[in-house]
């Protein structure tokens, strides 16, 4: 019996010919990351380990992203503590004005690559799986130890294979595919499992849409969300890789825990209604509720392709007078490119509030907190009660075109309604 993509990568990282689901292995890690929320705890734990240096400064990154630019004194102290450690260690570090949301910044910078094992102190570390690597989120203590040793214990997960057939309709992309999938299997439908994504519908997507899918593997409980690299992946990687990489393929006779096949040719834009990412519904069947806020950004949908899509819908129109539309490019590089393409001007002219990069509103950190009873259409990844503010506020997860259309209409709405 052959191995899945996750098993192939893990076997190669523990010096074994093969590994099987359920086995505990000690895997070498190619890259480790933490951010301004998780690094302070990780660094304090690191300092208890009795070592002076991180295992490899070019393979450990510290990213100011969540409460950055500093939202208050405590956040500033955390950011300072992380910065001083990162600089003293000579680790990979990006200051504000060059930084970005972790999971946009690291792949775009060529720091995480196909075939890697990546561990990050952030649950959306699984985003990088779209490159054909095994990337998984962990807590600060695990990351502290990985920073010191360059390895990590893991239980080899069983793999569920998802195959997406059909040609996607206009305005349907990675966000809709993954919300549809989570709606089908539930928020623990892939608990402890690797998700391996395949199919011709996936092949049609650009890298941005693929990152969106892998990003939300954790929303189904998944440990990782992997894709097999193709020509698009390799073109993306070649343009930015900081070091060598290796492409792994699953064996044709790999043993999957389950194979799920979907025909997506009739898939509409999807919305995850409050208060679970699994509360999935086609937009046409979703209630046309009045909204107070729209957020376009995050590690899920704050990339250039996402901003282009939203700008296409909102160009020449105005955000509804009752609504605030907050647009946050997910990295400084994305911000700069969106500026050059005129996208930021389009958003500003439409009455959007365009801000510098931060995770801020996605996790109810700052820069767009919801009051009691308020509703937000968000391109982010979670809509648990209180996720973006008051526990009795509501978050509707959607793709960037739906978010932009909703900002114009003032209700949950689709792009065709706006474009006519």
């Amino acid at each position, binding site marked *: 019996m052959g191995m899945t993509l996750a098993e192939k990568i893990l076997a190669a990282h523990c010096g074994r010919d093969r590994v099987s689901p359920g086995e505990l292995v000690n895997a070498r890690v190619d890259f480790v990351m933490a951010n301004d929320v998780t690094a302070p705890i990780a660094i304090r734990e690191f300092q208890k380990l009795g070592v002076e240096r991180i295992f490899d400064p070019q393979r450990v990154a510290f990213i100011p992203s969540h409460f950055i630019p500093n939202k208050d004194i405590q956040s500033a102290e955390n950011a300072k503590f992380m910065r001083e450690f990162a600089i003293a260690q000579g680790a990979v570090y990006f200051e504000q004005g060059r930084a970005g949301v972790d999971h946009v910044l690291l792949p775009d910078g060529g720091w995480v690559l196909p075939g890697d094992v990546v561990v990050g102190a952030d649950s959306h570390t699984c985003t990088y799986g779209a490159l054909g690597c095994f990337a998984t989120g962990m807590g600060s203590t695990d990351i502290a130890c990985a920073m010191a040793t360059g390895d990590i214990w893991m239980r080899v997960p069983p793999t569920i294979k998802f195959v997406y057939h059909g040609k996607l309709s206009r305005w349907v992309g990675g966000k809709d595919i993954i919300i549809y999938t989570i709606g089908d299997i539930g928020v*623990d439908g892939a608990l402890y499992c690797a998700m391996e994504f395949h199919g011709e519908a996936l092949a049609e997507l650009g890298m941005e849409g693929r990152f969106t899918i892998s990003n939300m593997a954790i929303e189904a*409980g998944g440990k990782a969300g992997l894709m097999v690299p193709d020509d698009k992946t390799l073109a993306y990687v070649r343009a930015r890789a900081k070091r060598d990489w290796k492409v792994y393929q699953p064996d044709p006779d790999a043993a999957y825990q389950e194979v799920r096949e979907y025909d997506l040719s009739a898939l509409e834009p999807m919305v995850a209604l409050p208060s679970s990412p699994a509360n999935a519904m086609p937009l046409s069947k979703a209630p046309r509720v009045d909204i107070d806020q729209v957020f376009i950004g995050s590690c899920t949908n704050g990339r250039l392709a996402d901003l282009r899509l939203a700008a296409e819908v909102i160009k020449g129109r105005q955000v509804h007078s009752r609504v605030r539309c907050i647009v946050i490019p997910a990295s400084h590089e994305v911000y700069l490119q969106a500026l050059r393409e005129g996208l930021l001007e389009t958003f500003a002219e439409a009455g959007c509030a365009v801000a510098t990069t931060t995770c801020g509103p996605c996790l109810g950190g700052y820069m767009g907190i919801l009051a009691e009873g308020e509703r937000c259409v968000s391109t982010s990844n979670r809509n648990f009660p209180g996720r973006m503010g008051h526990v009795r506020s509501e978050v509707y997860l959607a793709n960037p075109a739906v978010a932009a259309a909703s900002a114009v209409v003032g209700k949950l709405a689709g792009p065709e309604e706006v474009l006519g």
Partner: protein
Amino acid sequence: MSLRGHVYKYGANVDTDAIIPARYLNVNDAQELAQHCMEDIDAGFAGNVQAGDVMVATTNFGCGSSREHAPLCIKAAGVSCVIAKSFARIFYRNSINIGLPILECDEAVDGTDAGDELEIDLESGAIRNLTKGTAFQAKPYPEFMLELMRAGGLVEYTRRRLAAKTG
């Protein structure tokens, strides 16, 4: 080690935003975090919980973010053990790593109500419901996890490993 306390019971998919909302994530002090533990879904919890009390929940407890603040604040609140039908995997790792005991046991979850008094033997996984006079057996820990727990958590385990390597 034997633990004893009263039950706080929750449902499925208790997420990390419910355990400790992100508005407190710039706080690193576990005792301060504990004052806000569960506040959005159980406002009385932090004020009422007694040292030794037990959290019981159904499936996918601790889903969502990787924040270690979640098990840290549960532990600092005085909770001696969390029993669930299943845990989200990052929460599971974090709990073992920081020394918050967690057990998986379907029958104990189904057979326990809020306020019941439980007695738990961690090494064997034996759970007794003293209020109802019933007994349950949790899934055993894999040997490696026991090794981690005996060492006092991942940091101490790794410190010893590194010390042995550099000799």
